[in-house]
């Protein structure tokens, strides 16, 4: 059998490059001796044998052989370093805690707001915001709540000046948007609202509300129910039952309260739902034609629906938070719990 040609030898050595990254310590020293060994090493031998070749070929092969030698050396060193680290690590007690970083979390209420808005975005809603300080006109009268009507009593209002107040709901944005845009309108409006309620376990004077409004030709009670149902099934679970009950809001008619199956007991009745199996999550209904008239929209041409919900309450339901004040204290121990919450 003739001696392998120098070229073949180069290829054979190159093949060890793929083996090196997986080699165990014994094999690694074998390869080192086999390839790089000063006397019997294959590359050393190869380089020695180059003298017999023609000058052009010698130069070419010599360059290749030297490159390869460098590559093999590096690969061997890399593998060796890798094994050195592994050896040190295995000598350590890996049950010791790893190094952590501070992780921040979005406030649970805002997380819920984002989630709700994102679901409605799937239904083509835009996310908009509006002023927190409002006029009586936008907060009440344009929404078909005459100032001398008992419905005003449903809103304990903070006043800033004559006719100026802190909005008691996000509904003023219904009027502001309808005055500025031609239908089709599909919006969700998250924001802070104010009620003159003393702070207790379930009430706060400053809290989040989330409004929704749809205005277009041909929007009906069926579309309203379907839109809300879509939201509930995506926000809670797809088997969550939704219940629509008649109610009264001056700016919607027909009006509805929307209940969802209690998430704690799945509808069998518990202390959270006071045994009813349902939890109220929003007030809603078809936009009252008087509101359209007040905002310059023709009620004979357009219909629509609107809804409003309380993200604080929904947050409490979702995470089982017993006291609304926890959502205002900004206690690090409380917020830490939401770093990995979904």
């Amino acid at each position, binding site marked *: 059998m003739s001696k392998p040609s120098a070229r073949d030898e180069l290829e054979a050595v190159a093949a060890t490059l793929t083996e090196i990254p997986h080699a165990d310590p014994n094999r690694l020293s074998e390869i080192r001796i086999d390839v790089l060994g000063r006397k019997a090493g294959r590359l050393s031998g190869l380089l020695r044998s180059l003298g017999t070749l023609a000058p052009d070929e010698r130069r070419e092969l010599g360059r290749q052989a030297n490159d390869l030698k460098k590559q093999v050396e590096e690969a061997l060193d890399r593998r060796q370093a890798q094994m050195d680290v592994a050896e040190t690590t295995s000598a350590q007690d890996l049950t010791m805690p790893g190094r952590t970083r501070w992780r921040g979390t979005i406030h649970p209420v805002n997380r819920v707001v984002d989630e709700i808005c994102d679901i409605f975005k799937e239904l083509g809603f835009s996310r908009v915001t509006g002023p927190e*300080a409002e006029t009586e006109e936008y907060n009440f009268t344009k929404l078909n709540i005459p100032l001398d009507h008992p419905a005003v009593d449903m809103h304990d209002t903070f006043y800033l000046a004559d006719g100026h107040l802190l909005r008691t709901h996000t509904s003023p944005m219904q009027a502001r948007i309808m005055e500025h845009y031609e239908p089709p309108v599909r919006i969700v409006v998250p924001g802070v609202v104010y009620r003159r309620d003393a702070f207790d376990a379930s009430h706060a004077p400053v809290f989040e509300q989330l409004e929704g409004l749809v205005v277009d030709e041909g929007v009906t009670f069926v579309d309203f129910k379907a839109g809300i149902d879509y939201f509930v099934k995506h926000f809670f679970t797809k088997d969550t039952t939704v219940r629509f009950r008649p109610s009264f809001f001056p700016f919607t008619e027909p009006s509805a309260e929307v209940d969802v199956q209690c998430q704690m007991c799945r509808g069998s009745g518990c202390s959270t739902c006071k045994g009813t199996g349902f939890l109220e999550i929003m007030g809603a209904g078809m936009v009252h034609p008087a509101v359209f008239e007040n905002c310059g929209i023709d009620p004979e041409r357009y219909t629509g629906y609107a809804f409003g919900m309380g993200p604080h309450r929904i947050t409490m339901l979702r995470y089982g938070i017993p006291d609304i004040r926890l959502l205002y204290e900004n206690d690090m121990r409380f917020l830490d719990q939401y770093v990995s919450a979904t």
Partner: protein
Amino acid sequence: MNVSLEWLGVLLDTKLDAGHVSHELAMLGSPVESVTRANEGLDDVIVALVERVEQHPNADRLSVCQVNNGSEVLEVVCGAPNVAAGVRYPFAPIGSVLPGGVKLKRSKIRGVQSNGMLCSAKELELGGDADGIMPLDTDAALGTKLVTALGMDDVCLDVEVTPNRPDLLCHRGVARELGAVIGRPVKLQHIPGGPGETKTLQRHDQSGTVGGLEVRIEDTDGCYRFLAAVIRGVRIGPSPDWLQRRLQSVGQRCINNVVDVTNYIMREMNHPMHAYDLDRLAGPTLIARAAAGGEKLNTLDGVERAMQSGMTMICDANGPTGIGGVMGGASSEVRVDTTNIVLEAAFFNPKRIRKTRVALQMSTDASYRFERGVDIQGMTDAFHRAVELLLTTAGGEEADNPVDIYPKPVRIPSVFLRPEQVQRVLGVEIGRDEIEKYLTALGFAVAPKDDRIAVQPPGWRPDVTRDVDLIEEIARVRGYDSFPTVLRPFRPSQVPHEPQEAVKGRARVMLTGFGLHEARSSSLGPQVGEDAQAVLNPLSMEEKFLRTDLIAGLVRAVQHNWSVKQRDIRLFEVGVVFAAQAAVRLPKETLRVAGIVTGSQHPHHWSIPNSADFDIWDVKSFLAGIAGECGPPGRIVTDEGRVTYYDQGGTVRGWAGPVTVDVPAWAAPVFGFELDLATSLRAPRSHTDLPDQPAIERDLALMLPDGISSSQVEAVIKKRGGGYLESCAVFDEYRGTDIVGRSVAWRLVFRARDKTLRDNDIDGAVDKVLRALTEQLGVQRR
């Protein structure tokens, strides 16, 4: 509103179940807030028969009774002198709990075992008689619950009534609503022992006389209708048991047979009425007139109240004797010795009542109903029934035909409904017959009118004035559940997303990435700054102003966390701050972000014994990072020991630095930043090609004399560094007693786009930099 289930059942002539009623009412729009069983505390007490009574062997005043509870005969010791064999008594078995909360235990009384207790009315809180046990006149089976045997097991429903439905503030209204869905008519119960009829009303336009009493409406805007009857020869006393029980079942205190009747009618038929002592009315006259400012009146609750114009007074010849629709006066109150009475039923302008109620800050059962609107047409029925009840319970005789002063009879306009409009709103085709069926069930009169339906709302539904009101009625009675839930295609919104919401979102992602938790603080707090907007009617002085910055709320959050012994605190908030403007304008609102940090920079790890605390350099970089992406375009300037962010117009828009607050000894210093948010995200930046030439780095250790800042040095380097200077950055600072000033080390990076630089390409630039530093700032190479 409290509703007695039994009362409701009588009106609908059927036995009702509380759970069923609650569900139906909820699905009609009047959810039941709570269900309370009357006399719940008596649940354990049963009817038992005393079979034998013997003298207690060791006590003269005690007896030993053999008591049959329906299943066994027990020995019971009794101290009541009236105990008798063969009589039934309320019996509390061992283990039962009596109204006072006492749990009955088995005990020996003077050596004799007593297996329960025979009860007095007082012990059961059923009356004042403590002299003896309560004999029962009942043939209920032994062992029957006492409340069942006595018919006291009524259930009280607290029905939530929305402000548009005054008609639901009485039992008949709730019964009508329920009757519409369960298909039963509403009928008023015959008054036990009543005459069956009363004298007919005499209509007058402005004034009339009844039994010597002159009745007149002067304030026709405040009082639309005034009915009055005079009954002579009444005897004031307690109401009959059935009536008392009815009132008690809804939590109404019983007063006497006259006042009780007005309360009964109000709770049954919704019309508040008032009874006067005829002999205490000067004149005698009753005039409804507008109040003149400054008049005073002692109301029934014993308070002297000042009248204001806009109120409607009921006056006798001497002056005010009642505030119309709100409360009667003390002077003409019905008392024990009253023999002749006037019964008034009137209709007052709801808006005027509301103003009166707000001005006097007194809400009464009457004002609550008048403000929402009572039935001006149906009030005559309520009046006749009240007169009949009075004649039955208090005796006496009607002096005359009662008067009905009704200057401008109210006509309730018809509402016209197109059946296709129903479909247009509800999305489902509902036949004309079906529409008419629902409306008729609720008491609306329907008639065809061209292709429409002419609907006459009943007097008790002042809320129904336009077609959409009827559409809601149809949907309600048909049931919201009956409408399908089908998602259909929709057209995209014409309204764009609010661009600032994206800025908010970006800031929140960045700051949570920095390890800060998002906080939410109240926007109401104490005054911070001159331009703070005040709230006119705050809940407390601590919450009188709208916030002018976010850091104050975050400081409060830090203090809360300190109070629960948290040392490591990292919070940020995105929210609106307010600045008061001229009175005619709403306060200016600005969206801001702020952050606060104190304590360890990193969570403690065993490999690093002492982690450093947050300091100024953290908040400076937070500010720079957030401002760069979410702030208005601008720059950070360090002046007068502060890190300030200016926009391009030179207005201060943010800061970073230490926060002044009393830090507990065990806590760390506090640092914060605050920044106005940009109104929209910046346009995406365009790509920069990656360098394909190597760079040359030069490190310069520079001696900075006192008063020379690194930004001054940086400016010189950048100006003199030449075209190849790519970047320069501080990488070290040294201060020590061995040097004057400080030594700051800079790394300058040079790179050419199109060639590989050699040292001699940049030596000139470095020399220029060093020369300029020395000349301009006195900065030398170390």
